[in-house]
């Protein structure tokens, strides 16, 4: 009897072993819910010695702060709330002072004019609560005239170090600048920094221009112009504003061009005898190849980042919908199946999403979907939203929003792909058809 009890006890004790083993070691908890809110950061004026350098330092810190806060992912702690000053770039940072104002990230830097026109900007990014630097310090050297670009580059590094993805601040946008009433609107091509600064006009307003599109390297722009009385495609060199018309067949209209990632091939729409199909052209040789041959309207082609596929708009099913086909033509697969009309698809630079315009229920939306058409999300809704274009990092979308009425104007807006941070991009007047270029080299 006693032996039985002993055996039973031994068995039960052995059974309890795993529980005992689990109890040893650290306490384990799983965190599955957090918060999504802008990260508080501080960017005190960069350290400078002379008066001119101090002015420049202040300008730099303001542009950096505008870039970061403008993403909606960061929130600046106002400078008047700082309880500590950075007087030396090399001295250790008093992290406790920055923790006290709840700054989670801190950007410190210094500006020094070097020679007649050059300036040197050094900076560091600090993780305040960890009490350590985020990566190594960096230095940018540039001309004083190009100070905004240096500020954008600093902000890009900060953004990249904290979020883990590339920034988009040192980039430019080409668009159609508009002026005058709706029925007599003057349009010309313009280029600006992503934040609206450094605006420059690329064409005059004597002819209607449409749909400018950056090349992958940002050095050239394709656009459609009515200079000859009917739509023709032009290619414009951004640096010297030189331009030339692309060859096309007589009696045809060509429009909606877009560069392939290789920068040599252009996909576009060609309308002939009432039918519109997609073509591609070698921009140097001028030979065109037909990609679609359907009685329906095929337009708005956009290449995938690897250049192997094209997403486009077609009404072959009765209403405009989105399709994907191989870059050399071939069988197309429909990807949009929701209610409404889909158009102007644009492939994300990351390759995972397609942005589009959707007309449904009397309203226009900018939306995104996966490349197989799943997970469609509408980000905006208004009287007229159209023509999305991706930020170089695929995180933000710009588009045109036109207000209602005879006095209605077009403006450029931007929105995060989460649907947050919808805001207007500052332009001097009306603006439409934005095309977001790559990060500058």
């Amino acid at each position, binding site marked *: *009897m*006693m*032996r039985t*009890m*002993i*055996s*039973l*006890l*031994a*068995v*039960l*004790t052995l*059974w*309890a*072993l795993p*529980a*005992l*083993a*689990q*109890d*040893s*070691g*650290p*306490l*384990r*908890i*799983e*965190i*599955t*819910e*957090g*918060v*999504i*809110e*802008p*990260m508080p950061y501080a960017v005190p004026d960069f350290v400078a010695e002379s008066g001119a350098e101090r002015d420049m330092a202040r300008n730099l810190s303001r542009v950096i702060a505008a870039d970061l806060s403008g993403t*909606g*992912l*960061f929130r600046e702690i106002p400078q008047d709330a700082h309880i500590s000053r950075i007087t030396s770039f090399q001295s250790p940072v008093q992290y406790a002072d920055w923790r006290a104002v709840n700054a*989670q990230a801190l950007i410190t830097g210094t500006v020094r004019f070097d020679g007649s026109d050059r300036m040197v900007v050094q900076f560091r990014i600090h*993780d305040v*609560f*960890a009490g350590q630097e*985020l990566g190594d310090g960096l230095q940018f050297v540039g001309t004083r005239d190009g100070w905004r670009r240096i500020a954008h580059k600093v902000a890009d590094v900060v953004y990249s170090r*904290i*979020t*883990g*993805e590339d920034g988009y601040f040192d980039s430019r946008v080409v668009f159609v600048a508009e002026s005058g009433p709706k029925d007599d609107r003057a349009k010309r091509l313009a280029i600006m920094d992503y934040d609206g600064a450094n605006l420059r006009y690329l064409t005059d307003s004597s002819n209607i221009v449409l749909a400018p599109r950056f090349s992958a390297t940002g050095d050239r722009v394709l656009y459609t112009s009515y200079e000859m009385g009917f739509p023709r495609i032009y290619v414009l060199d951004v640096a010297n504003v030189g331009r030339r018309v692309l060859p096309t067949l007589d009696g045809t209209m060509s429009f909606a061009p877009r560069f392939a990632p290789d920068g040599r091939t252009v996909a576009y729409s060609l309308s002939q005898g009432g039918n519109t199909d997609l073509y591609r052209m070698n921009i140097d040789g001028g030979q065109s190849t037909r990609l679609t041959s359907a009685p329906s309207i095929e337009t708005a082609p956009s290449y995938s980042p690897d250049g192997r596929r094209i997403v486009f708009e077609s009404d072959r099913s009765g209403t405009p919908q989105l399709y994907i086909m191989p870059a050399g033509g071939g069988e197309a697969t429909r990807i949009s199946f929701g209610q409404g009309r889909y158009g102007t698809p644009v492939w994300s630079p990351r390759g995972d999403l397609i942005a589009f315009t959707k007309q449904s229920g009397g309203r226009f939306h900018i939306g995104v979907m996966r490349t197989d058409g799943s997970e469609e*999300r*509408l*980000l905006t*809704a*208004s009287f007229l939203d159209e023509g999305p274009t991706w930020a170089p990092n695929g995180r933000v979308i710009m588009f045109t929003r036109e207000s*209602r009425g005879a006095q209605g104007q077009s403006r450029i807006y931007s*929105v995060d*792909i*989460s*649907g*947050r941070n*919808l805001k207007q991009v500052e332009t001097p007047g009306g603006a439409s058809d934005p095309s977001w270029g790559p990060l500058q080299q």
Partner: protein
Amino acid sequence: MDTGQIISGTGHLALIGWALFGGSFQSAPEPFEVIQATTVSESEFAAIMDRAETPEAVANVDTPEPPAEGQTAPQVTPEAETAPEAAPPRVEESTPPEGVEGAPPSMQVPSEDMAVMVPEVSPRPQPRPAPRVAPEAAPEPEPDTRVDDVTQPEVTPDEGAETAEEPSEATAPEEAAREIVTEAEETDAPAQAAPPASVRPRTRPDRPDPPQEAPTATAEAPSEPEPEPAPEPEPEPEPPQPASDRAAIDDALAAALGEAQQGTERPSGPPLTGGERDALRVAVQRCWNVGSLSSEALRTTVEVAVSMTREGRPDIGSIRLVGSSGGSDAAAKQAYEAARRAIIRCGTDGFDLPVEKYDQWREIEMTFNPESMRIR
């Protein structure tokens, strides 16, 4: 045949006999109802129906005849169906108050643009897109309200009060929404009185882990679901040896427990309760901000280990990444940094952990799983 079988057989026979003849299997007859009926001829039935359709004047009947058996009750139209004549409402011509002259103002027809701005029906309040997304939604706090976890009104000392109250400023949680509301979603909901669909109720939270007590064999034995193993068959029963049995039990326990305790030092003291673990989890997730993480980092789960001081503060130098899954090394680094910030920020004042159980939480491993925080 032994005596036992005889007794058993007799007993069973007696029982069967009693069951058969004792009336146990005979049921009493069910009582039945007797209804008396009379035959009615065709002419009598027609006469009855006739009377039913055209009742005689009620005034001539003092006491109604009891109906013959089987007679159908006459249909009687309730008098209440006749609507009483409604008294005309008194209408008094209102006279304009003194000082008001002229015709009533006419409403101007709004222009097209204005008409658009006037909603036809009062829209129901829509969920506001708050800049902060948190597990629990919170309204926008009143101005001059300090952001805090708890909501409390402002307390000002009352001079006339008998007991002086500690003055404190009003606090409220920071405004937050439960999810990102895009412009399309914000205005998509039609303005109507009833919501088109109700919010899906949240799934019940997982049952908290059972307290990790060191189970003893006697405590756990009754709940052991598995069949108890049969004791080993002993071919040769041995005589009981009381003195050596106690030693054998001790040996068996020592052998079993000794293995478990070998190598690692088991935390002493009682384990943390589910509530205490939840409180720690909530305290950390309040500071876990994933808003500035890349899409890839939002697909990366990281395990972060931290040593704690007795005051409940994390030892910053001890925070380390012990594992990650779902993303590249770079993404894991970003996710780890966000997790580290959460631990440090919310641990600055010390987590609310029971000091008597310090051994249980001296070392903590937190798994940060952002699956539910991704952009949907």
